[in-house]
């Protein structure tokens, strides 16, 4: 960038061309930086163990993608399939429920007045700051007192809490749900809750999808809480499962190809979700970023 400034003052046309190529070069290098590791993962997933350690990722001689795939699902009695199902369950169900809860609360913050509203909202926002590590031990003790440690619920319930979703919900409600529309619904004799569920929620669709995606990513990535709460491998999400397999890999290298293949498959759902819902989260991000 700075090189383009220095040269621009000289003559008008050539430096501009130079500036353009420098800009494109910088962006191109950045794209390579973000893409190549993923590309390596794709290529490495086609390698058997020996080829993996010979570092020759680009050779297509021993193509064992299918074998790695069948190995992955056969390893340790098909544990990976379970983990994948668990992750989907935690993430999709948790994100859907969490987004509905957060958006409803954000909407109420926007449309209703009550005493100490801004203070309460400030408290919700402050919750974003609190590290997960601070909550983990107390949550573990609470779950153990309730007999929930090492169950689905110990991981599922805490991930529903999404204070940032409330913040986004309030902004979306401001932007997408005009007061006049609610007024019209009230004139038609709709109750407050009916106005929300039949009118406002539909207008909040893109916001709902954005919060859903944010939370889907967060839960799919979740690693600390399952690590604290779960000891039964059958309940692990993919993240924790791959972590435990990777720790076995240093002793028994046959785990390497399956960890790589497992990582590749674990990336797919989020990429799909982002690609399919692109229209929504882009507008959602804008709302979150600009306000």
């Amino acid at each position, binding site marked *: 960038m*700075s090189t383009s400034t220095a040269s*621009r003052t000289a003559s008008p046309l050539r430096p501009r061309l130079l*500036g*353009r190529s420098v*800009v494109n070069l910088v962006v*191109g290098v*950045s794209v390579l*930086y973000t893409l190549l*590791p*993923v590309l*390596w993962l794709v290529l*490495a997933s086609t390698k058997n163990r020996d080829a993996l350690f010979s570092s020759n*990722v680009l050779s297509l001689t021993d193509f064992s993608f299918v074998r790695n795939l069948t190995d992955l699902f056969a390893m340790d009695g098909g544990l990976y399939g379970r983990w994948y199902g668990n992750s989907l369950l935690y993430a999709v169900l948790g994100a859907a429920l969490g987004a509905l809860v957060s958006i409803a*609360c954000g*909407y*109420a*913050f926007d*449309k*209703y007045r009550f005493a100490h509203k801004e203070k309460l909202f400030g408290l919700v926002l*402050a*919750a*974003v*700051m*609190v*590290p997960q*590590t*601070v*909550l983990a*031990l107390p949550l573990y*003790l*609470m779950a153990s*007192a309730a007999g929930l440690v090492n169950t689905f619920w110990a991981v599922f319930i805490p991930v*529903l*809490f999404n*204070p*940032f979703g*409330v*913040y986004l919900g*309030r902004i979306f409600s*401001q932007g997408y749900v005009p*007061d006049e529309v609610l007024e019209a619904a009230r004139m038609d004799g709709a*109750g*407050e809750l009916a106005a929300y569920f039949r009118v406002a929620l539909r207008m909040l669709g893109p916001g709902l999808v954005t919060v859903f995606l944010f939370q889907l*990513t967060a839960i799919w*990535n979740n*690693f*600390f809480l399952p690590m604290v709460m779960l000891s039964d491998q059958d309940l692990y999400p993919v*993240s924790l499962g*791959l*972590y435990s397999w*990777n720790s076995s890999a*240093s002793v028994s290298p046959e785990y*390497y190809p399956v960890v790589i293949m497992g990582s590749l498959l*674990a990336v797919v759902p*989020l990429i799909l*979700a*982002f690609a399919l819902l692109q229209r929504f989260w882009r507008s959602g991000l804008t709302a979150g*970023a*600009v*306000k």
Partner: protein
Amino acid sequence: MTSATPVSAPAETTAPPAPERHVGAAPAPAGRGSARRRELGACGVLMTPFFVLMVTVFLIPVATAVRLSFFSDDQPGLGFGPERTVFAGLRNYTAVVTDPTFLGGLGIVALYCLIYIPLMVAGALALALLLDSGVVRLRGTAQLALFLPHAVPGIIAALIWLYLYTPGISPVIEVLGKADITVDFLGVHTVLPSIVNIALWSNLGYNMVVFYAALQAVPREVIEASVVDGAGPVRTALQVKAPLVRSSIVMVAMFTLIFALQLFTEPMLLSQSTPMINSRFSPSMYIYDAAFTRNNYGLAAAASVVLLLCTVALSYGVTRWTNRAAAAEEGAR
């Protein structure tokens, strides 16, 4: 996050407030009262699920952490029960802040923040400005490619890079080796930059999209005006566009800071392969180790309260500092 509040606060307060809402609905005072009651009822119904969650998985745990930090188990390792714990005053805190491994962890995270946050903010902003400049080819594709790592879970990103750091597997080390360069990515001095790289790789594109979205919202007239004034594209980018998206910069810096302070996943995974990362490498790892390996709940709770206080103090400091900078700039105009 708190940073975003003051920034967005003016917009919220200037938005049409509620009073006009009732004009048509309920002309009679009695009707107004019942409408208000119904509104509050609906408000309560919509907010209850969230606040029930907030109390159970946030407020009670935070309070519990604070309470635990003042107690200690006189027979450590026998589990949790009020009858076995004794009030310890500030003993746990003294133990934490005089523990060199904890202080070492804090130092490592401070260094990590100092390297990571400026790189992240400057890198993401520079990329967003370049993409916004209009000379980049295949802009949409480039954006998607840059965003891609955000869809890669943190633990998987750490796994990919761990393999790229591992001699024998890594094509990077192989290529460097052919050029007669030997790098140990997991050595004493390189392990922290290696972790920074993983975090940077994961989040650069996401923050770029945030900045890009904010830049798109800058009124085109402002930019045209600066071009008319004779500012070149670089000056326009740095002196006109960048200051206009300052609220986004603060927001990104704040979120990056909050998550950086929680550093856990990447070192935890790398620790499987390098002796340079011990089980108390970062404060979060220290807390995990104290709570679940050593079963010293009081110590873990005190350490987590210290980490929380650091986070709050730093976030508050950043907010104050940026607000003051903003006020100074307003004054200068």
